[in-house]
């Protein structure tokens, strides 16, 4: 069945007189569509936003300071404990060093006993201060 047989109008002379079959708007037209901007002007003002931000920042920095205070106190506690036990550790090490040093001096005297003019023992620097021995011979377990 062609369109002419379906859509014909009585008294049609040619196909060009067929009534129109179009897709169109409903009668009365479509409802109006809003496309304009509607950004409202309400809400906090610029000063209010700035003050809130600064307040939050200041409070945050204050909390940072408080936290630093606490952390510094913890570090102080740790360092104070280290300071208190330093003398005993150093005293123990001194005892061990002195006995090792005596053994080393005896060994040196034994090795150099035939060398004329060798002053055994303190063959160290000229400044007068005591310097720890520079070689690693006295702590073979460490070095």
């Amino acid at each position: 069945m062609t369109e002419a047989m379906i859509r014909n109008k009585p008294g049609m002379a040619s196909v060009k007189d067929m009534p129109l079959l179009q897709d169109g708007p409903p009668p009365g037209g479509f409802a109006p569509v809003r496309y304009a901007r509607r950004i409202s002007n309400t809400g906090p003002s610029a000063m209010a936003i700035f003050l809130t931000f600064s307040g939050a920042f200041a409070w945050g920095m204050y909390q940072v300071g408080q936290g630093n205070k606490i952390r510094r106190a913890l570090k102080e506690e740790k360092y104070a404990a280290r300071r208190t036990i330093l003398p005993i550790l150093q005293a123990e090490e001194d005892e061990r060093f002195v006995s090792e040093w005596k053994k080393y001096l005896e060994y040196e005297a034994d090795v150099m006993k035939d060398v004329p003019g060798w002053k055994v023992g303190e063959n160290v620097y000229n400044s007068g201060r005591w310097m720890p021995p520079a070689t690693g011979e006295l702590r073979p377990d460490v070095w």
Partner: protein
Amino acid sequence: MEANAAVDGTGNPIPTSAVLTASAKHIGIRCMQENMAFLKCKKNDPNPEKCLEKGREVTRCVLGLLKDLHQRCPKEMDAYVGCMYYYTNEFDLCRKEQEAFEKACPLK
């Protein structure tokens, strides 16, 4: 001998790092004179042979203090030393044991 024991077989305290840091506050109060004398001697002359006597005083004071602490409050001290050993001498992680220890053996 486990590493977190505070005393050896005969009841003498072993000065490991855990034991020393656990008793650090007590040492700071009760052995302060000896510590200060030793440090002053060291400042004058770093030669270990010159400060041996003061060093022996320090060792005597601290080891005597450790033995005294262990005799007065053994359980609390062992708990605190064990906690220090477990947390490698971190004071903030052992507050409970520290409080129990300081209640039993108060810092004077």
